[in-house]
């Protein structure tokens, strides 16, 4: 029975997606994007069991009917505040009561990006959008305090929402953007964030994904560095029922620099699949990626790190490091660097490892009276500590530390299971 379902699932999802898209009632400014995305969606296929890019992530959870309904729920009253400047999207719709933005940043209820957003879910996001937010940072503006964008999902029944943020950094502008995903309940958040940086723009970007374990998330994060710009992105992610993050970056002007740092944690039965793709399309760009993953209990994590260096992209510097830690043997992490290099004049380094907690380190801590569970937590935190210490904004670090401590904490009964 489940076999039949799974077989029809890609078709079912597509039928649903097209139906929803045709019935959407978007704000006017979204019409052009919607039409283009809809046309592309008609020609797209949803992933099935044999789709290579979805090898480790089954969409079986979506047979619960998430695409059949749009999420209808209210956001909780007390939303976290990580900055004075904030905007809140609830199930993809801007909640205007919360909007406060600094000078030099203007807000539009529109979206227009299509290039690079090629997955069926990203296309569906564009085709079925009813609301969206674009932030334009004016040229030569240095926005002093971070802007926090909260994507909240809320709903009691299996349902979904499309949430979308586009950010354009004009020449010489500087911005710190904190994207935070929150939510509980069986809601699938289908997210797209597209960021474009012009010459001399500088972005510090955070992506905090700590939604509850029963939520689902499929999202694309897109960086387009059309100018000589620098982007530092910090991604902190907990696994949930289904989490799939596609991160795509285009380095399109010589001298552009992209640094991505990530921590992902899959505990209990949670799942997280990271698909990274960095495209060096012009000479002399730099990309540096450092990801650390942890999985415990029956948690499952995936990282696929693709670096694509195009024929003309001489003098490219590209690095990817992904170290992973299994907290117990029942957990699983699959990591794969994928290099496509079409010229000789590049410096490209990559490394991926999966290891376990070091028995001798555990014993050393225990020999000082520290209980095993606490020793494991300390060592797990130590494994990601370097990244946490490097977070440039203290408010985010203050949020991240207790979050991680809880994510890496002991699970009831875990030790008996491991023994």
């Amino acid at each position, binding site marked *: 029975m489940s076999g039949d379902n799974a077989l029809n699932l890609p078709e079912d999802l597509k039928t649903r997606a097209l139906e929803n898209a045709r019935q959407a009632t978007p704000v006017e400014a979204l019409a052009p994007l919607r039409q283009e995305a809809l046309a592309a969606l008609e020609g797209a296929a949803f992933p099935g069991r044999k789709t290579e890019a979805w090898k480790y992530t089954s969409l079986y959870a979506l047979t619960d009917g998430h695409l059949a309904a749009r999420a209808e729920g209210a956001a909780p009253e007390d939303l976290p505040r990580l900055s004075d400047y904030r905007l809140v999207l609830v199930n993809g719709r801007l909640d205007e009561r919360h909007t406060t933005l600094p000078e030099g940043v203007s807000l539009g209820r529109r979206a227009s990006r299509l290039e690079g957003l090629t997955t069926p879910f990203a296309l569906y996001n564009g085709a079925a959008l009813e609301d969206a937010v674009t932030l334009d940072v004016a040229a030569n503006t240095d926005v002093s305090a971070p802007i926090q964008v909260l994507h909240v999902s809320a709903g009691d029944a299996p349902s979904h929402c499309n949430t979308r943020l586009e950010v354009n950094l004009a020449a010489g502008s500087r911005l710190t953007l904190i994207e935070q995903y929150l939510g509980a309940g069986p809601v699938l958040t289908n997210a797209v964030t597209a960021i474009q940086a012009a010459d001399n723009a500088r972005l510090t970007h955070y992506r905090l994904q700590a939604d509850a374990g029963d939520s689902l998330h499929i999202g694309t994060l897109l960086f387009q560095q059309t100018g000589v710009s620098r982007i530092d992105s910090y991604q902190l992610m907990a696994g949930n029922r289904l989490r799939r993050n596609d991160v795509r970056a285009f380095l399109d002007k010589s001298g552009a620099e992209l640094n991505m740092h990530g921590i992902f944690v899959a505990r209990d039965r949670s799942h997280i699949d990271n698909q990274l793709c960095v495209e060096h399309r012009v000479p002399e760009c730099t990309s540096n990626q450092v990801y650390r993953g942890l999985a415990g209990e029956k948690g499952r994590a995936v990282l696929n790190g693709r670096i694509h260096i195009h024929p003309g992209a001489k003098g490219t510097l590209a690095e990817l490091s992904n170290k992973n830690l299994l907290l117990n043997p029942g957990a699983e992490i699959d990591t794969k660097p994928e290099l496509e290099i079409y010229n000789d004049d590049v410096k490209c380094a990559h490394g991926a490892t999966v290891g376990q907690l070091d*028995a*001798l*380190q555990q*014993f*050393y*801590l*225990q*020999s*000082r*009276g*520290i*209980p*095993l569970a*606490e*020793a494991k937590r*300390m*060592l797990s*935190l*130590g*494994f*990601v*500590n*370097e990244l946490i210490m490097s977070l440039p904004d203290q408010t985010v670090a203050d949020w991240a530390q207790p979050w991680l401590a809880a994510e890496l904490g002991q699970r009831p009964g875990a030790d008996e299971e491991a023994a």
Partner: protein
Amino acid sequence: MLEIRDLHASVAGQPILKGLNLTVKPGEVHAIMGPNGSGKSTLANVLAGRDNYEITGGEALFEGKSLAELEPEERAQLGLFLAFQYPVEIPGVSNMEFLKAALEATRAAQGKEEWDSVTLLRKAREACKQVDLDPQFLKRGVNEGFSGGEKKRNEIMQMLLMEPKLALLDETDSGLDIDALQTVAKGVNSLRGPERGIVLVTHYQRLLDYIVPDHVHVLSGGRIIKSGGKELALELEQHGYGWLTDDQNGGNDKEDRTA
């Protein structure tokens, strides 16, 4: 406080300790000497409860409790401390954080009052000073990139803070320069008292000039083959172990027959 009777132990399935007897009473300092590979570190690790170091016969009692039945952390909480021959590096966990967790756990278990963070920091700085370790080392990862001698001093620093009932020092003198040897010896001596036991594993008589032992033992082939007073260490320095091990072979046969 420590009673070891006819202890047999294996490391990763390999028998190493073969009928070891040792008794340490409160207030005593024992030195254990012996050739490389004779089982000195094995003994220390068995007592501290390292994984894969398995007691296969006999018993080891600490404060009347059978060590075999206790987790390593429980042994430490009872007041057992092992200064490692090779202290372990733990990048990402700061020395201070490590001390805090260790002292919270052991002091709570021992019913001692909790130290607030100000007190803890002050005590830790004092302990660093006592072993000539720059307090900056508190901020670094545990033993991370420490020199050999710094690692040893870091062990003694921890010991001073934890105030164990029984300290096992496994070659803490190896790799120390002459000044550091005196500093460390002073640190160890400051812990000496009627309630405490100390077991020193060493290859060098020199340490015993500074920390004068009540008893000296020779461990060879997994057993104590000779015990004596502090003068035994001088004898060993002059004559080596050869005359003892020859002797031991005869002794072994005899015991095997009676066993």
